[in-house]
């Protein structure tokens, strides 16, 4: 009996069972550490290096810091849903997409966005081969992918032990990663003044039709990068002690801290191009070139640690969310499955080669998903959901829709995708319509999807189709006249 109880407890933190208020373990600072570890990975440097090719210092600073933070302040609004009900966001998405639709759209999106983890592991591989070279060992070309797979395995070992292990690892790793960023900034500024940095012209300046167009395309990449995080929210917020604590931890941790690292990456790439004439989006090249043997090697070690910590957090989050497809799937087997998939991508190496297209394709998928979630929960359902239907309990199946698919959501999503490609070519990075300059393609996809879904929800037969859960017993915050939940004591602090 005790063994069964322990397994039930594992399902609370390592499965889809909702957490109650007294079971939340992550305060704002805990969540900030984990989210920062989630965000700080060497894909930031790849994104930064990518930007540094096209933008000057001022443009990089404002575009990366405020573009990413703005995108994240929108994409992490669904954190409220997960934190409020103590459920994985992918579980809520059953209400948006239907029981089968959620499996198709969400799990397919995970297959796509695992490309980020592959880049993460590849970078670990590059760090290790360069460290070996610094120690006098010239390893063969296949050593990089082998080390990349080792990174995936190390992340697997941590993730197998669940959220507490992930939390402990990240309390050590995150401060180390901040030190790396500090080292890089010191390396850059010890030989360069601000005015000298401002004078460096990026190699690809104006490559896409002029300064403004290039800046907007960079915003598109940053917004797409930020919006793709909708798939990474997962079940972390179900551990949050308050909604606002969870939200701001995500925005500042996975958002602003990540943006700072992107800026540092872009800055370093720009400086390296200016000083050496070598254009690279590989931070391991920058660190050794600019840092020399001492600082460069230390930075590579820290980068390696960053990669492993991020791998563990993403594996935990995605594996839990994948249980939406089948709650009976074992968490540890899912962690193993995603590790193997990531290793295959690492060995292939194609995600990094086609990085710009990869980012755009991720934006095409993620923008509409976010638009649907926001409209569905806040505007159509008015923040009231049926947990019985979400978990298919007591004969409640309000989210079955049509064969398990919410056709209104599917249609809205296609409208969003069409609008995306109507204004922007993600393969050739070309702008097709001036609307792009006001909304970006990802922003337009999000807005048109949301608008279409909202309008469809105003048509009575479709509204009835979408809101079958109104006859269930709904879960929602009841407010008294002071705007405080009737169940919340006045002394409760966020």
């Amino acid at each position, binding site marked *: 009996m005790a*063994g*069964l109880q322990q*397994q*039930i407890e594992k*399902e609370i933190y390592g*499965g889809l*069972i*909702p957490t*109650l*208020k007294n079971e*939340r373990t992550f305060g704002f600072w805990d969540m900030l550490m984990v989210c920062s570890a989630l965000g700080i990975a060497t894909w930031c440097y790849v994104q930064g290096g990518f930007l540094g090719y096209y933008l000057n210092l*001022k*443009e990089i*600073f*404002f575009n990366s*810091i*405020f*573009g990413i*933070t*703005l995108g994240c*302040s*929108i994409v992490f609004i669904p954190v*409220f849903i997960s*934190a*409020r*009900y*103590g459920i994985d966001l992918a579980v809520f998405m059953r209400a948006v997409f239907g029981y089968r639709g959620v499996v198709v759209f969400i799990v397919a999106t995970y297959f796509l966005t695992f490309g980020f983890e592959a880049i993460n592991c590849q970078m670990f591989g590059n760090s290790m081969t360069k460290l070996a070279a610094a120690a006098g060992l010239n390893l063969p070309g296949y050593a990089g992918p082998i080390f990349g797979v080792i990174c995936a395995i190390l992340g697997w070992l941590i993730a197998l032990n669940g959220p507490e292990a992930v939390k402990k690892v990240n309390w050590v790793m995150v401060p180390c990663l901040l030190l790396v960023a500090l080292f890089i900034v010191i390396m850059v500024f010890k030989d360069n003044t601000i005015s000298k940095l401002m004078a460096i012209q990026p190699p690809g300046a104006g490559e896409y039709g002029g*300064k*403004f167009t290039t*800046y*907007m395309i960079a*915003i598109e990449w940053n917004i797409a990068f930020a919006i793709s995080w909708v798939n990474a929210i997962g079940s972390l917020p179900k551990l*949050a*002690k*308050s*909604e*606002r*604590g969870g*939200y701001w931890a995500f925005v500042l941790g996975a958002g602003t801290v990540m943006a700072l690292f992107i800026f540092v990456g872009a800055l370093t790439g720009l400086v390296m191009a200016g000083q050496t004439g070598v254009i690279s989006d590989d931070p391991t090249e920058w660190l050794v070139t600019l840092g020399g043997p001492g600082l460069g090697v230390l930075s590579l070690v820290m980068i390696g640690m960053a990669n492993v910590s991020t791998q563990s957090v993403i594996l935990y989050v995605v594996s839990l969310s994948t249980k939406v497809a089948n*709650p*009976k799937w*074992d968490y540890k087997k899912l962690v193993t499955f995603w590790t193997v998939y990531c290793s295959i991508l690492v060995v292939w190496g194609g995600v990094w080669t086609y990085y710009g297209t990869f980012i755009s394709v991720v934006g095409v998928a993620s923008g509409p998903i976010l638009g649907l979630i926001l409209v569905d929960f806040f505007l159509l359902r008015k923040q009231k959901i049926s*947990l*019985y239907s979400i*978990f298919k*309990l*007591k004969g409640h199946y309000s989210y079955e829709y049509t064969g398990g698919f919410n056709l209104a959501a599917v249609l809205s999503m296609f409208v969003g995708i069409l609008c995306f490609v109507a204004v922007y070519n993600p393969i050739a990075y070309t702008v097709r319509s001036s609307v792009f300059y006001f909304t970006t393609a990802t922003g337009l996809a999000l807005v048109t999807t949301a608008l279409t879904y909202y309008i469809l929800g105003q048509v009575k037969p479709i509204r009835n189709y979408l809101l079958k859960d109104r006859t269930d*017993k*709904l*879960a929602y*915050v*009841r407010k008294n006249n002071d*705007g405080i*939940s*009737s*169940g*919340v004591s006045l002394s*409760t*602090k*966020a």
Partner: protein
Amino acid sequence: MAKGSGFDLEVEKELERRCDIISDPSYEYVPFVNKKDWIYIVVFMVVCLALLAYGVS
């Protein structure tokens, strides 16, 4: 311990129990966002947008 139909039944029972608790009007949710929070969020977004626009000027 191998998971079998006994475990699945227990999980479903636990899920039902928790859904009953959370859906009950007396359930105490974690501190939730209020109007003031939303104002701060919108102001934060507007500031980010303004600074983003400044970057290209």
